[in-house]
């Protein structure tokens, strides 16, 4: 097994595991300011990805990422499906076949653009973008400071708590969305931590 393939499998497994382990928590966050399905949706999506994982990890990074994204699009069932799906698919489109650390920031920036276009949204609206954008900025600053990346992502997710939701169902709550962490922001931070863990060789 090539080490790249191993890395893809480790990443996928780590992400799917963290989503599965936190599914209940994500659903509860969504119950507070949404329709209470974010954990269920994400778990359904990553369960489907894992069911295909043997085939997916065989593919080079671009096709691997596009495949993950396409499965999320097809299986998640909530707004987060096409949004995270677009994120992964665009990462796949942007990254070269043999990506190095320095390629990731640019690819993530492009992927964020695509998510913003799909969601008609931007950072500051209490969504996944409020984690993705600072993560991309941190990568741009220092692509190798992996622990910082996890810290930035976790802090950014927490920072959605005091925000007022402008996009997604939470926006129906107006001011009452304030005081709750956004579920999609939380799942984004969980995925960042899982990916970093896999890169560092934790399990």
């Amino acid at each position, binding site marked *: 097994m090539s080490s790249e393939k191993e890395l893809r499998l480790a990443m996928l497994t780590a992400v799917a595991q963290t989503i599965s382990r936190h599914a209940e928590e994500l659903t509860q966050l969504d119950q507070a300011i949404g*329709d209470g*399905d974010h954990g*269920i*949706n994400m778990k*359904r999506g990553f369960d489907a990805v894992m069911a295909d994982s043997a085939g997916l990890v065989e593919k080079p990074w671009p096709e691997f990422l596009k495949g993950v994204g396409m499965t999320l*699009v*097809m*299986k*998640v*069932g*909530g*707004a*987060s*499906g*096409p*949004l995270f*799906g*677009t994120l992964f698919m665009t990462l796949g489109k942007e990254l070269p076949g043999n990506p190095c650390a320095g390629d990731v920031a640019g690819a993530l920036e492009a992927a964020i653009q695509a998510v913003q276009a*799909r*969601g008609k949204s931007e950072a500051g609206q209490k969504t996944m973008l409020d984690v993705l954008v600072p993560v991309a900025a941190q990568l741009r600053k220092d692509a190798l400071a992996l622990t910082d990346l996890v810290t930035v992502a976790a802090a950014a997710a927490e920072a959605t708590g005091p925000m007022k939701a402008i*996009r*997604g*169902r939470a926006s129906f709550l107006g001011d009452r969305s304030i005081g709750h962490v956004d579920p999609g922001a939380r799942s984004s931070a969980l995925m960042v931590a899982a990916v970093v863990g896999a890169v560092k060789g934790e399990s």
Partner: protein
Amino acid sequence: MSSVGIVIVSHSPKVAEGAADMVRQMVGDEVKVAWCGGDPTGGLGTSVEKIMQAIDSAWSAGGVAILVDLGGAETNSEMAIEMLPPERQGRAVVCNAPIVEGAVIAATEAAGGSPLEVVKRTAEELSPQ
């Protein structure tokens, strides 16, 4: 049949089916109507795969107007449109109109043979705000 087809995409299959019943009552068989609802495992939500199938079954030479309810239904429908074969893209549009009222109005306009832009505009303008 070249009149614009109508696709109804709700989080709830019951809403989608009931709205299609209301459309049928207004336009009979003059307009193709397809509906879908529910996430891939049947809970409340939407499914890109089901949306693509519904678009396919309501497809007409005049294109299809898609009516959606909340956020995810819209995002998933836009995703589904992008995954259509290139020659169909641009002839499937999501209407910024309420799902039930908009579906009835869009179908009524489509039954008159109006082109896609007019069907979309009429649904968006005539619906209760």
